[in-house]
């Protein structure tokens, strides 16, 4: 697999195309529980499930430490769906998420060539919504009782950014 690294994040944060060397840290991050309250992943991940074959997954790195991950998947509605999680709570609010989302949009619109990137976020995750808004995402819908999470049906805010808006942003978003 070609080594893909996107640098320039705050404090040296960078994106790397995830590969076997990231698998154990990804598994531990998903299984730590630190991300469970704000993500749609529920079941423990195995190392083999993190083999990453066929996934467009990226590792969010600070120095040699994996602090989160993001990936594209088939969209719920149209374009590409983006999912991101910062595993370490102490890394949240320090710009890594904004950097990663911005770079993923750049990949989606300039490399993949999609016209739309969409994602779902819990309504009470104000910090994540702010990150997405900074990257050009707009609130499009409140999907009612969309996700079953920790024993209850929860609504989901659906957000998206369009290529034409992203390209037209003052100074670009890159």
């Amino acid at each position, binding site marked *: 697999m070609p080594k893909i690294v996107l640098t320039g994040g705050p404090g040296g944060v960078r994106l790397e195309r995830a590969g076997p060397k990231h698998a154990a840290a990804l598994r531990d991050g998903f299984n730590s529980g630190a991300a469970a309250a704000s993500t749609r992943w529920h079941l423990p991940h195995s190392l083999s499930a993190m083999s990453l074959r066929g996934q467009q997954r990226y590792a969010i790195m600070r120095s040699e430490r994996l602090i989160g991950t993001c990936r594209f998947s088939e969209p719920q509605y*149209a374009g590409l769906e983006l999912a991101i999680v910062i595993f370490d709570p102490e890394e949240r609010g320090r710009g890594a998420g904004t950097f990663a989302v911005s770079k993923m949009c750049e990949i989606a619109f300039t490399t993949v060539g999609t*016209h739309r990137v969409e994602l779902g976020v819990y309504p009470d995750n104000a910090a994540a919504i702010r990150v997405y808004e900074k990257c050009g995402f707009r609130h499009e819908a409140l*999907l*009612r009782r969309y996700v079953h999470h920790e024993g209850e049906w929860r609504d989901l805010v*659906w957000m998206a950014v369009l290529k034409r808006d992203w390209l037209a942003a003052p100074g670009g978003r890159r």
Partner: protein
Amino acid sequence: MLPPTWLVGKKTRLRALEVEDVPFFKRCRLAIDPQARGFVIQTLDGTDIGVLGLLVSGPHAAVALGFVDERRYVDGSAADALRVICNGLPRTLPVQRIEALVPTGSHSVEAHRKAGFHREGVLREALLDGKVYRDAAVMSVLFDA
């Protein structure tokens, strides 16, 4: 042979889509997921007037409509076919949400509203119409599963 009673409404009834219905399906200008179930919407006297695609994924279902004659969206046929699905599906499967993507500004939005769908927002450029992406209202109806 008549369809099960739960597939019969006040103005329309639904029957399963057969291979020979594919040309009719195309006339109704509806593209659906290959995993979806297809139905032909008939008047109660057995005239084929439209098609309905239904995709069930666990507790969620998505529905899409197409008609040969767009006036079916305003004469009550579309709303009736949607009511047939909304009344019957939760009695058959543990579905707790049925949603639809509906072109904004179309008569279909009102037909869904009449059938009990709530408009949750507008997804920009989410529906491919030929070679052009159009905005779509996402509409849903909820059930206790």
